[in-house]
């Protein structure tokens, strides 16, 4: 209420009244002025139904994420299912340096701000955990990555981010994020280039 304290009360009341009026007022068909891609002003007729505000995003009853057929995630040899070892261990959520197992994992993915159980579920180790608390399989790890990397996730779903194989007009094979990016160190690694072309004048030309 600090802001209102400094403002003049009649202006505040007027603003609140107009907000209420605009939000509940009826919507009529109208001409809508928009700029197209080339910067030209275009006027389009829109019906009342089109101008109705879109319903708010329903958090509880979200549309289920489409599933994609993907190859087996690139697990470390013999590491999966995780529960084969973890079921004998007491879950410990305390961030600490791992000294016995998983020592090869060096976290270069928002270092210092992440801990295993941010993504791996503490109790059921064979599942990943979304921020919402929902558990997902490793084959659906794209949903986990997509929580932060929404732009890449959107591009990946339509086939613009990441490699696609298969048929361009038929079945397309998707890859998981983790097939190309190590989730613990996601930067794409440098590759050795294939040999350069022969220079003109070389024998055989």
């Amino acid at each position, binding site marked *: 209420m600090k802001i209102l304290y400094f403002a003049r009360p009649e202006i505040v009341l007027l603003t609140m009244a107009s907000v209420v009026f605009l939000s509940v007022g009826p919507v009529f068909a109208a001409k809508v002025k928009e700029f197209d891609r080339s910067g030209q002003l275009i006027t389009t007729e829109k019906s009342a139904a089109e101008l109705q505000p879109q319903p708010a995003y329903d958090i509880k009853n979200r549309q289920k994420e489409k599933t994609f057929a993907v190859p087996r995630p690139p697990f470390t040899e013999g590491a999966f299912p995780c529960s084969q070892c973890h079921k004998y261990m007491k879950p410990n959520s305390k961030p600490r340096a791992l000294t016995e197992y998983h020592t090869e994992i060096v976290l270069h993915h928002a270092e210092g701000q992440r801990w295993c159980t941010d993504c791996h579920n503490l109790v059921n180790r064979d599942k990943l955990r979304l921020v919402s608390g929902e558990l997902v399989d490793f084959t659906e790890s794209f949903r986990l990555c997509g929580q932060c990397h929404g732009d890449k996730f959107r591009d990946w779903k339509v086939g613009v981010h*990441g*490699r696609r194989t*298969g048929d361009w007009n038929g079945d397309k094979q998707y890859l998981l994020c983790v097939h190309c990016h190590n989730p613990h160190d996601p930067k794409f690694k440098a590759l050795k280039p*294939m040999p350069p*072309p*022969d220079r003109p004048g070389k024998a*055989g030309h």
Partner: protein
Amino acid sequence: MSDIKKCDDHVLHKSRRKMLKGLAAGIGLIAMPGRDASASVWEEFFQKHFRELSKDELKGVIARLEKEYSTRYDKKITVKTTPPIEGVRYGYGLDLSRCIGCRRCVYACVTENNQSRTPQVQWIRVMQLDKEKGIDLSHAEHYYNPATVPEKGHFYMPVQCQQCEKPPCTKVCPVQATWKENDGIVVVDYNWCIGCRYCMAACPYGARHFNWAKPVIAAKEVNPNTHYLGNRPRPKGVVEKCTFCIQRTREQPGRYPACAEVCPVGARKFGNLLDPESEIRYLIENKRVFIFKEDLNTQPKFYYFYAT
């Protein structure tokens, strides 16, 4: 006196013409293949332009070629003549923000499309460019060979046939051995090409390549799945170019081009420009896109884009 001389000249003239005619016919006869030469040489010599062949004639041509290639490489080689798919116009997208210049595409293309190993023919050329200078071709380097790519301060731009909507190469061909198909792919009839290389001079992208010698490919490396207008084995002295893997993409269902499939960073995108749901349409509508040498008005269907 002068009349007689004139007459003499006339006779002499005539006889010289006759002599030349006879000589030409004689040389022609000698140059012709002998009786023992196989009929295929005759057939090849008198083969019509690809687009003028009737269905039966085409069948004969394909049978002859398949037999020839199969004996040459000692394995079954098929030559397809799959026509364009109705309602399809191919487009290609290449993400410059992802390409790391590893040249996997170059060699996947060589293997898929039966390009000559010696002398070397490669349909894709990857340029290394300075990030500071942008797309400045005077500073392009395509013989780069560091231990690992990408190198700091550089970006990479692969160039291949741009499948122009207004291809300058087909315009200059004196025998119409190259043309644009209905699905937008620019193709070459290797049996009609006379090897004048005008198209190579006309192409602003350096996308056409000439077989200076008989292509050498190890028999076990030959891709037996070929198309007449695409990757079938080429003779010496003809021009060849990228066909968006016509032998794959014209099928239903058709596989992605070899370069798109092999790309380790997923920078290469392919699809139907007429399909609003395709990947290529999405990237054209949502990403920053440019076409190479736009000022020449060749209208490429090869779209370079930045996904980030």
